[in-house]
Structure formats: C-alpha cells, structure tokens
C-alpha cells in the first residue's frame, strides 16, 4: 500500500522528467551580435595644396574575425607633399543596418585614441584634433610624406575608457590594422 504510493511518486517524477525532456525547442536563434566588431575602415587623404586631390583607401574584412583574409588597399601618395588625413568611415558591415562606428567614436572621443605608426622615414603624422580634456584623438591628422619609398602605415585604435592619458599604453585595442604604402 505504502510502497504503491512511493512508486507512484517515482513514476510521476519520471513522467515530469520525460515531459520536460520532450518539449519542443522552439526558441529562435539570437541575431548575430558581435559587439564592437569593425569590418571596414576608410582613410581619406586631401592634398593641402590642391583640394581636388582627394584619395580614399579602404581596409575591409567583411566576414569579421577569421574566415577570408582582409582586403587592404595600398596607400599611394605623392612624395614631399602635405595631406590632411581624416578617418571618414569606421563601419560594422555585418550588422543590418550597417553600424556606423565613426559617429560613436566622435561622441566618445575622450575615451579613444588613434595611434599612427609609419615605417621608418616614410612619412610623419601629426594628430590635429583634441577631445574635451585637450588630449589628442586622431580622427584627423596632418601627414607629410618624404621622398619616394615604399613601407607600411599601422593604425591602432585604443579604447581607453576612464584611463585615457594621452599615451598609448592604457586600455585595449579596438582595431590594429596595417596598410601598405607607396610614395612616388
């Protein structure tokens, strides 16, 4: 008699278990959400002596991290020339609609720093914009090229939330890209 009661409890438990195990899993897969992904960066160079001489070079990795290798334009500039450099587009093209990260970085420019690292004696980069704390940002810069030469330009975006002090070290890297450069 008592045993029956207990057995029925066991049976109920088994049943509950079976039910919960068999329920259909209908939950939708979440949207692809890679926070802070940057797929596309576009640099625009404007010749300071000739406003019509505008050149744009892109760095693209449209499938995000891994997968196909990034496609990188070669930066081609004239020798011994001054350019105004602007980072015109920073996008996440995997998102729909395409996420424009540039605006966000402009808004939070006091937490971001662009660091320019040209290869030796190729060109010089001087950051020309400042944040509210009078610290450099780097969305805009002045570039002076030297004599004809090939090399690379590495650009690092540092995210320095609450720790920005004008130097590169604090924070973490949001992007770290390298363009081939040809000056002739």
């Amino acid at each position: 008699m008592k045993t029956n009661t207990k057995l029925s409890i066991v049976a109920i438990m088994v049943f509950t278990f079976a039910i919960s195990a068999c329920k259909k899993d209908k939950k939708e897969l979440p949207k692809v959400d890679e926070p802070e992904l940057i797929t596309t960066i576009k640099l625009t160079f404007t010749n300071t002596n000739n406003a019509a001489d505008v050149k744009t070079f892109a760095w693209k990795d449209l499938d995000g991290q891994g997968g196909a290798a990034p496609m990188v334009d070669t930066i081609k500039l004239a020798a011994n020339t001054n350019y105004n450099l602007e980072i015109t587009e920073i996008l996440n093209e995997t998102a729909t609609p395409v996420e424009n990260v540039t605006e966000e970085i402009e808004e939070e420019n006091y937490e971001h720093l662009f660091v320019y690292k040209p290869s030796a004696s190729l060109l010089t980069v001087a950051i020309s914009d400042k944040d509210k704390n009078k610290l450099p940002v780097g969305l805009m810069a002045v570039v002076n090229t030297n004599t004809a030469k090939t090399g690379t330009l590495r650009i690092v975006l540092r995210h320095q939330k609450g720790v920005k002090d004008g130097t590169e070290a604090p924070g973490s890297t949001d992007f770290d890209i390298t363009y081939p450069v040809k000056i002739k």
Partner: protein
Amino acid sequence: MVHLNYKTLLIASIIVANAFTYALAQNCNNLIFGTIKDAKTKEILPGASIAIKENNQFSVVDEDSHYHFNQLCKGNTYTLQINFLGYQQKQIEVEIKKTATEINVFLSPVASQLAEVNVQAQAAIHKPLQTQSQLKGKELELSRGLSLGEALKAIPGLSSIQTGPSISKPVIHGLHSNRVLIYNAGVRLEGQQWGSEHAPEIDPFIANQITVIKGAASVLYGSDALGGVILVEPSPLDFNKKLTGQVNVVGMSNNGQGAIATMLESAIGKNNNFCWRIQSTYKVAGNAKTPNYYMQNTGFNEKNAALTFAYRSAKLNAELFASTFNTKLGIFTGSHIGSTTDLDSAIARNEPLAIYQSNLNYTIDRPYQNVSHNLVKFKMSYLLRDFGILHAQYSNQQNNREEYDVVRGSVDKGYQLKFDLNTQNIELFLDHNVTPNIQGKVGVQGMYQQNYYAGRDLIPFFTSYNGGIFLIEKYTKNKLSLEGGLRYDYKYMQARVRLNRKDSKSPEIQPEFNFDQVTATLGAAYQILPDVKWSSTLAKAWRPPAINELFSNGVHHGSASFEKGDINLKQESSLNLTTGISKTNGKLTGEISGYINHIDNYIYLKPDLLPVLTVRGAFPAFNYVQVNARFTGADFLTQYQFNKFFKTGVKYSLVRAYNLANNKHLEFIPPDKISLILQASLNDSKKIKNTGIAITINHFAKQWRVLPAQDFAPTPNAATLLNIDLSSQIHIGKNQFNLSLSCLNTLNTQYRDYLNRFRYYVDETGRNFILRLQVPIGKGLNKI
C-alpha cells in the same frame, strides 16, 4: 668453536624468532568478535555493517549475525561503528586488553528511536576503493572563507588553475575543468565548464567534508571523471537534535573580505521523523593586493543559501534539497586586452600600468561576471526486504551566466554574453548485499541538458540526452577487498547554429552527435597490517567532446588567441592505474600513491603555424586537435608525531604529462610542489582546548618542462611561501567556540603562479591575515 658458534646462533635465532612472534602476538594479533542483534527481539541482523574507525576495517555480519576483526593491537582503543538500515547507529569504544574480546552489539530499531538511513553505512559502496583524500575537521575549518579550488590545494596531488585572484578551479593530477567532476550534495554539478575562467558554482560552507577521488571513476560517477571526482558533502542530518546551529565569521586583511555563514537545523514532529536545515552565506571582498599594489576591479560578492527538508521512517527516507548560488565577480581591468600587441606589452611590463593599480575598494566595474546557479533535488531511499536499499533521485539545475565586457557606450547597457543552461538528472539505483561478503550497487542514470545563449556567439544552442547503466560489486573477506564494475553510457546531442555563423540571414543547421562507451573498473585493497593498507585500481573513463571544443570559432580575449573548434572530434577515453599504500595509526602515518593515466584522443589546443589576421591585428591561431597523452605522477604525504606536543609532516606531489605524438610536455601542468609542516600544540585546560600552531612552508618548482615556444611568456620562477595557522577551542559551559588566525604568504613574497592565467599581467596576492570564529547556536555542540 665454529660448531659452538653455529649452535649459539641457531638457538639465538630461534629465541629471537619466538620473541618476535610472541611480541607480535602480544602487540597486534588480537581479536574482537561478537554478534549484532536487535535490542528488543534479540533477532539476528544479517547485513548489518560494522567498522573500526581507526583503521578502516569493515565487515558485514553473516547469517549467524557474527562478525570478527583481527590484527588489533593490545593497549589501543578502537571505535566500533555499527550501522544497519532501520536501526540507530551505534558507536562503541573498546580497549584491547586480552587476545580475544567479545563485544555483542544490540541495536535499537528506528520505530522507537529514529535513526537515519545511515550515510556512512553505505559509504563503502558509495565511494570506490580508489585513492581518495578528505578535507574535513580542522583542516576544513582552516580553509573557511576560501574558494573550493583554493581550499583543496592542501591535499597532495591537487592544485588550482586561476584567472586572477577571484576565479579558481580545482585540478586533480594535472586534469581540470571538463575532466574533473564535482558532486554537490549528491548532484553532479553542471555549470558552464567550457573555460578556465568559469569557477565552480559551489559554496564550500555547506560542506562538513570534501572528498576527492583521485583518478578515473567513470563507472560510479559517469562520463567526464577522467581526472577524478570531488564530493562536496554536507553533514548528515540529525533527527534527534532540537534546534541547533552555528555561525561562521571570517575576515581577511588582504582584500578586506568579510564572510558570514549561518546554519540552523532541527528535528520536528512527534516521532522526530522530520528534520530541516537552513544555511546561508554572504561574502564580500574588495580588490586583492599583491605585495606591491592592489589589483583594480578584483573584488567580488557572493550570496548563497540552501534548504534541506527530510523525512524518515523505518523503511523510507526522503529528502528535498534546494540551493542557490549567486556571485558577481570583477575581472582585473589590466587583463583586458584586445590584441596580441596588448598581450606582448603587458608581458613586457614588470607590473601593470599605474592606472590599473588601485586602492582597497569594493567597486566592481566592467569587465565582470554575474553567475547564478540554482538547484533543486529530491531524493528517496527505500528499504526493500531481501534486496537492499533502493534510491531514487531527481535534480534540476539552472545555471545562468552573464559576462560584461569593457565596450563602447552604445553597447554597454547590458551583458555581451549570456548562457542559460538547464540540466535535469534522474537516477535510480539499488544498494544490495548479494551475500554477506558481496555488496554492490546497480543503477541507471539519465541526464537532459538544454543551453541557450544571448549576445555574442560562442557556444551554440544545444540539447543533449545522456543515459547510463552500471553495476559495481565489492567483495570483502577479512583483509582483502575486491571491486569490479561495468558501465555503459550513451550521449546524444543536437546543436543549433547558422550555416554561416556570422550572418543573421544564413539558414539554421542542426548538427547531431552520438557518443557511447563502455567503461570498467577493477580494484583491490589489502590490509597488510592493522593500520597499513594497500590499494590499487585500474579504471577506464571517458568524455565526449565538450561543446566549446566542437564549436569554438573566435578570439579568446583572455589569452589573445584565435581558437578553432572541430565538429569531427571523437570522444576521449582513458585507462588509469593508481596504486598506493597508507598507514593510518601510530607515530608515523602517511600515504604514498602513484598513477599512470593514459588518454586516447586527448583534446587540446594545438598552435597553428598561420596566424589569423583580424581587425585587431594578427592573432596566433589554435586548433582543437586530438592526440594520445600520458599523465604519470605520484603523491606523497607523511607525518610523524614526536610526542603529545610536536608533529611534523611532508607533502610532495609531481605530475608529468606528455603528448605522445611528439613527446613534448603538455602545457598548463602543475609544477612539482613540496610542503613542510610543523605543528605544535599546548596542553588542554578546562576552558581552552586544542590550541596549536602550524607552520607550513610550500615550495613550487619552476615548470621548466614546457618549452619557450609553447607559451607567450617564460614560465614563472620557483617560489617558496610561508603560511602560519593558530587555532584554539574555547569552551564556555557546554558550548564550544572555535577560533583561528591564519597568515598566508607571511613573508609577503612576490611571485607568479604558472597555473594562473593572469600571470602575464600581475603578481600573486601578498600577505593575507585571516581571522575565523565559529559560534554554536542552541545548546548542541557544533559537529566539526
């Protein structure tokens, strides 16, 4: 002369031999025997078990209700512990004065005075013959306030992998995470084991004993038990007690940690057949400090509670257990790296940037984790006449984990990654006595799991079903125990992912996986001397590949590496031989054990020659691949009691782990560790008892077996640390207050630990004073 000499020698040797035999007979060739019967009816109780606590001798009475133990030493006092289902447990102390001592035991049935279906009576069947160690009593008390991983480091053969000061995971014989099982109050803990930064969701305050089974134990515990099993065991419920309890208070100087843990329990009902227990723990800690600086954002807080409600009658025991574990823990800000360059520059610095050094505060910012784990368990044990005890258990666990990264303003409203893992287990098994000498356990287990995620794609949705059936039998006769077991497991898993995981419009696919394996175990133990026991186990274990090993595809930010899973991975299977000898009595005690664990299809991350180029720069790539691996090692512990006041001990453990494909040492294996312990105690007075000091010197060797090419940074140098513990018990009336003061890393030594993943960024924590007080509630003395 020669002739005489020969004769003298012969006579002398006979005398010596006789004297020796006589001495043996005098000392340790004595016997205890008797019967075990019902106190009222005087009926015999075949199947009742009797054990000698001091030397672990164990016997189940035969059909004449008779038992006996031999090889007992004259002058010694032994504690007999007698258990029989439906009867009250009994303990009898016996001093051996003559060659044969008769002790007849009468047990009272539970009908009049209820005793629980004794946990210890079945302990011999619950736990395999294998090498095992326990953390209990004073040792456990001195670990109060530490995490599970840290607490278990006191056991030879155990270490912990850490992710900064707040996350710690236990390592057994060089294996961890998915290869170590944790049973929390009898339930297989199913948290998110895919990552060394995922600490086990366990509150060590609920345990009054933590048992570590070293080595493969899949037959009894299921898949994944390749390295071993950790059993977190609450104290058995006491159905005879009125309201009692205890409060533990712990304070730490290093990170300003405070912890308070409370336990209350009581029997209720007219016949004392109900019992409840309630436990709660609150912990809060600020930034931890290395010898030279505080580590920013390393505080944590933890809120846990557990409730037990139990019923028992002569034949039935039922228990409902529910627990909740909730933690929020900060991750050291200076460890947040976005690229390989970040990692390299962090390694190049001797200490983190000044901006990541902090003061003592309790603020937790991004990055941090919010983890909760809720468990409900219902368990019943039912006495079946002529069969044994039938156990049924159902458990439901819900694990939620949220990870908050340092992100730009637009996305920092919530978590970046969230998992919801539900696990339901059902098990049914029968503890039985085939003959008085053979006890065993036969059972089935089932497990259902469902995982969802939100945010970043790391681990896909999956549903899995596991089923297992096992049989394990133990034969005990006099000094010999033999154990054999067999198990079959099957696992089905279905994942749900997009064909192209980076494209929301890509169609969903549902890859399916099937794994199964037969495992077996064979063990033997032999009582060589009354207090010396040899044991050996040969066991197989297995592990299906974990979801992260199948599906990882992305940058692992903690280690700045690009990890690629492989959906074609096969299951791991291991063959593990452990053997050891232990001496439990006398001035010299100790244990030595050795093991070989051969793992086929060992899954590990192999560096890829080509780095993966991403927007954050080039990352070194790692692929999950399978090789054969062999882990060998030894654990050694010995203690010598000089006199009443002084005791000394040595612990040593080593592990060697090789990838058999290239004969290179595997990464992330604990270096050799040696500990020297000196203990002194004072005479007890009426009010102050068990007062003592323990000085422990721990030395970690450098892990030089790992080649420089196998790591981002050279392995840390050897380090020697000094720990001091002072403890005492104060008796006021019938109440016992336990008080202890420890100082960890007393010399404030600056060092880095090879098994800490944050060793690239920061030193280990410096000096830490820990003050603990245990206060009893109610008139009962605390149990520890």
